[in-house]
């Protein structure tokens, strides 16, 4: 034969044929698992457990709770071309079960030691049998067992040494099996899947690498199998294409989620398959929405008429052919793109509900750094440390905005249209505000407008605030000051205060200071007002949310102590009767008045008499002018261009009479200062436009220039630079550190 060069054609031995065929169906343990899982699912199982030893090469056991195999069938179950699922070739057109070829178990029995334990629902006991090369060894033996089937495969490829040697590591095989299990577990959400490793080194999880619970949803399973990050960002796709009779269902990640590898799970008619065309075209859809080099998670389950699908392409059934491929791909692609665009929410963020407050204890590091900066700038230069972008402070706290110089004229521009608002309750407040912030030259004009406005308003409502009209301010003109105190040079003379009590109070303030927070305030850059009582400021790389109300109260308290007895004065155009103020104060909810306190009229009278008694002292030290007939005619001007919220006046009068300790000198000054400061402090009802108004505000451009914001930014916060922050403010939430640039760089993925 060798001489003639012609080879003889021989018929192959049957076992060789079977072994070759088996090698095609079962290429690696993962294929065996896939085949057997499909058998389990065909048998209607709801719980499937796979146990592995060295990646399934040594032992692979799969148990289910399906309908089991009848004893009579146990004999031939492992022979080739035996199946319960296909009878005639035409059935292939409408095949709906996974298996149909009758090859899986037969193939396994040709390359491994196979044993099956099975019990049907009606049988009294289970039967166990072992198989070799497609034939049963002996006859089935009765054995104990639950309903269902347990298949044990041992020593896979024991008789195919080359194949066995080709498997590099058991862990790689384990991984491949886990991958198959994961895919089936997700697609069959609601059924329970478990993959267990029974080797010695099972690890902390007890060797369980895949586990889904009975009755769990798709999204829950995506969470357990692919991570909660993905589960939060998946959107459901559901569509039926009537023309192609194509049902699309699945979960895809939205544009906020990206993975290093494209995770693509495709099931066509419940069969796990690959389709490179579909995969590539879906990836290209995502390309324009995802960052470069990252990929989506896509799980799709397509259902099409079974007669459009050819599943019999390859023994592993891994690839399928279907009709109208281009149309199907385009349809799915369109569907995915539409779902992506319709998703209008962002990724999931973790938002702070409560914040840690700044520590009251001086953080050594911080203070050192800042003192270095100020005292030894030259020394620093010797050690040039690189400032990274995320540490770079791009603002200078010493810069002033141009509009801070335009405070008055800017107001004029804003005010004028406001005055012509329709007469209603709000317009009164607008007008009163307008008057607060108007400059003297504008005053007469506004007052006239105001009167006309008020008259029509008064007809509409009987709001207790009507009293306000009686005392808008006349800013103290130079004449006022001249008539009061004048030195020979024509300048107001400053009185020197030598009262021990005041000096002591001043000292106490200085001693109880929190140096860190003083620095924060001193070197801050103003960001903006959230609402009158809350503002954002920047200090170095940090963003703080500060309570303007509390800080301004502290500011006015310190001004009162510092300039004790040396204030300019706001004169009221019409003095305000204390009696009516007290009545208003008692009527307001915040007074907490109860009938047990006595009649309101009586209380109000008492307040009037009491304050008139103290008038001399209040006027001398605090420039709070009270006339003999019980009228307030002037209040101190604590901060230039700052106008206190006047609607606090009734409450202030009540508190001045009741909350102040009038007995000892020191505590009297202390409490009076506190009450005045409380009255002057920035308050949320400063204006009506709270941030919690329902209207959308982006379009309202003028709201950004509202006068209170101007005043808070340019008057209050400028003065706050020099305020001494008391210790307690480190802990009580006056300062909240919201963010730090390095952390923000991480969140915004900058580098």
């Amino acid at each position, binding site marked *: 034969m060798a001489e003639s060069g012609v080879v003889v054609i021989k018929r192959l031995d049957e076992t060789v044929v079977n072994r070759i065929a088996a090698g095609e169906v079962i290429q690696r343990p993962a294929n065996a698992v896939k085949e057997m899982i499909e058998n389990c699912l065909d048998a209607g199982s709801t719980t499937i457990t796979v146990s592995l030893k060295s990646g399934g090469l040594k032992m692979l056991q799969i148990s289910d709770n399906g309908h089991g195999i009848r004893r009579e069938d146990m004999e031939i179950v492992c022979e080739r071309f035996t199946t319960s699922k296909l009878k005639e070739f035409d059935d292939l057109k409408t095949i709906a079960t996974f298996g149909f070829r009758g090859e899986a178990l037969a193939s396994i029995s040709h390359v491994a030691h196979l044993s099956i334990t099975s019990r049907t629902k009606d049988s009294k006991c289970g039967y166990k049998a072992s198989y070799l090369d497609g034939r049963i060894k002996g006859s089935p033996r009765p054995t104990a067992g639950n309903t269902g089937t347990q298949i044990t495969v041992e020593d896979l490829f024991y008789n195919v040494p080359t194949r066995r040697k080709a498997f590099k590591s058991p862990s790689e095989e384990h991984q491949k099996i886990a991958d198959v299990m994961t895919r089936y577990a997700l697609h069959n959400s609601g059924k329970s899947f478990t993959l267990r490793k029974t080797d010695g080194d099972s690890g902390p999880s007890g060797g369980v690498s895949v586990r889904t619970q009975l009755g769990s949803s798709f999204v829950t399973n995506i969470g357990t199998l692919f991570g909660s990050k993905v589960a939060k960002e998946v959107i459901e796709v559901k569509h039926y294409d009537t023309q192609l009779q194509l049902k699309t269902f699945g979960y895809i990640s939205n544009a906020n989620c990206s993975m290093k590898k494209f995770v693509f799970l495709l099931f066509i008619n419940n069969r796990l398959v690959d389709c490179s065309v579909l995969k590539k075209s879906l990836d290209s859809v995502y390309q324009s929405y995802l960052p470069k080099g990252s990929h989506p998670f896509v799980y799709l389950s397509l259902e099409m008429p079974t007669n459009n699908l050819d599943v019999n392409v390859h023994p592993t059934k891994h690839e399928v052919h279907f009709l109208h491929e281009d149309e199907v791909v385009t349809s799915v692609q369109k569907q995915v793109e539409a779902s992506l665009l319709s998703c209008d929410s962002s990724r999931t963020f973790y938002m702070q509900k409560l914040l840690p407050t700044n520590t009251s204890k001086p953080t050594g590091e911080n203070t050192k750094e800042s003192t270095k900066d100020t005292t030894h700038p030259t020394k620093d230069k010797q050690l040039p440390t690189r400032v990274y972008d995320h540490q770079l402070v791009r603002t200078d706290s010493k810069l002033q905005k141009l509009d801070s110089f335009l405070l008055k004229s800017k107001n004029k521009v804003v005010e004028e249209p406001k005055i012509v608002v329709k007469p209603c309750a709000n317009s009164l407040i607008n007008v009163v505000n307008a008057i607060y912030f108007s400059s003297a030259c504008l005053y007469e004009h506004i007052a006239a407008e105001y009167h006309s406005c008020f008259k029509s308003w008064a007809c509409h409502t009987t709001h207790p605030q009507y009293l306000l009209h009686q005392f808008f301010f006349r800013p103290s003109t130079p004449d006022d000051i001249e008539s009061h105190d004048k030195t020979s040079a024509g300048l107001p003379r400053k009185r020197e205060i030598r009262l021990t009590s005041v000096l002591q109070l001043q000292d106490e303030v200085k001693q109880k200071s929190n140096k860190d927070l003083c620095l924060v305030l001193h070197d801050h850059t103003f960001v903006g007002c*959230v609402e009158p009582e809350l503002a954002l400021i920047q200090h170095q790389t940090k963003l703080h949310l500060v309570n303007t109300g509390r800080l301004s109260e502290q500011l006015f308290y310190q001004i009162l102590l510092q300039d004790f007895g040396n204030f300019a004065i706001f004169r009221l155009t019409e003095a305000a009767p204390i009696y009516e103020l007290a009545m208003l104060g008692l009527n307001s909810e915040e007074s907490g008045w109860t009938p047990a306190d006595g009649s309101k009229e009586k209380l109000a009278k008492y307040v009037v008499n009491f304050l008139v008694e103290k008038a001399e002292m209040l006027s001398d030290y605090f420039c709070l002018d009270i006339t003999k007939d019980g009228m307030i005619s002037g209040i101190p001007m604590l901060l230039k261009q700052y106008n206190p919220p006047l609607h606090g006046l009734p409450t202030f009068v009540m508190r001045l009479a009741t909350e102040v300790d009038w007995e000892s000198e020191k505590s009297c000054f202390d409490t009076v200062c506190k009450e005045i400061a409380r009255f002057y402090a920035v308050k949320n009802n400063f204006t009506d436009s709270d941030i919690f108004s329902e209207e959308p505000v982006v379009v309202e451009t003028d709201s950004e220039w509202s006068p209170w914001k101007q005043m808070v930014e340019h008057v209050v916060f400028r003065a706050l630079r020099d305020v001494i922050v008391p210790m307690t403010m480190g802990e009580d939430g006056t300062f909240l550190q*919201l963010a730090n640039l390095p952390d923000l760089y991480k969140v915004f993925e900058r580098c």
Partner: protein
Amino acid sequence: MPSVRVDNVTVFRPQQQNTTAHPTFFQGIYTEVKLTKEVLTKLKVIGQFGNKFIACSVGCTTDSRGMLLLVDQHAAHERVRLESFISDAYESSKRINLKTSKLESKVEINLTKTQTAAVRNHPEVFYTCGLRFDSDLNTEDDLVTVNSIPSLLTTSGTLKETIENLIEERTQALYVNRGVSDSMSPVLFQLLCSKACHGAIRFGDPLALEQCTELLTALSKCDFPFQCAHGRPSVMPLLDLNTLKTKKKRLN
């Protein structure tokens, strides 16, 4: 004397943290939030933080909660520019064909055999992405003369290279996806991304309040407002204002 209790000064005392610990970001209690496009339309600018971020707030309505947010000014502007570039690049709002411009000096491109076949058999693929060839396709030498290019390309030194990349990429797409992909060519998309990035507001650019508002309004009209052209986030919620408020009230 009646006891008149007036509490109009609010005290906010959050849970005492370990005072020795350095206060850091991401401490405290967190809540999961997803932002919606609707929230973006309601943003109110507070101010600019560090010339890098725009701090803004959103009021609480029945369906959303009050919160503070930070917007990355560069990322936001990049997104706004990208989406306007994309819609400008197409001839019509249906987004099928890209706008095309005639070249003053035509460009000759050497093709591979596959590319030649693609150009000859599927001219529509190249037509949609704005390329026009002179009709006398030289199949012998595999040479093609480009007379028009997509308008979004600029006649820079790398033009020839870009056209070559574009033809190659479209040819590949034709063979891999069988030409079913109708989204914009990645080559052109990347160009738009980098164009969007380069001209956008940078970190360190001071913005006036009006500019911030304008930017946020434009951002809220985008299809994908929550990420920049490169997929980084553009908006981040910072603080739940409702909790802050309720906490205050309870303590009062």
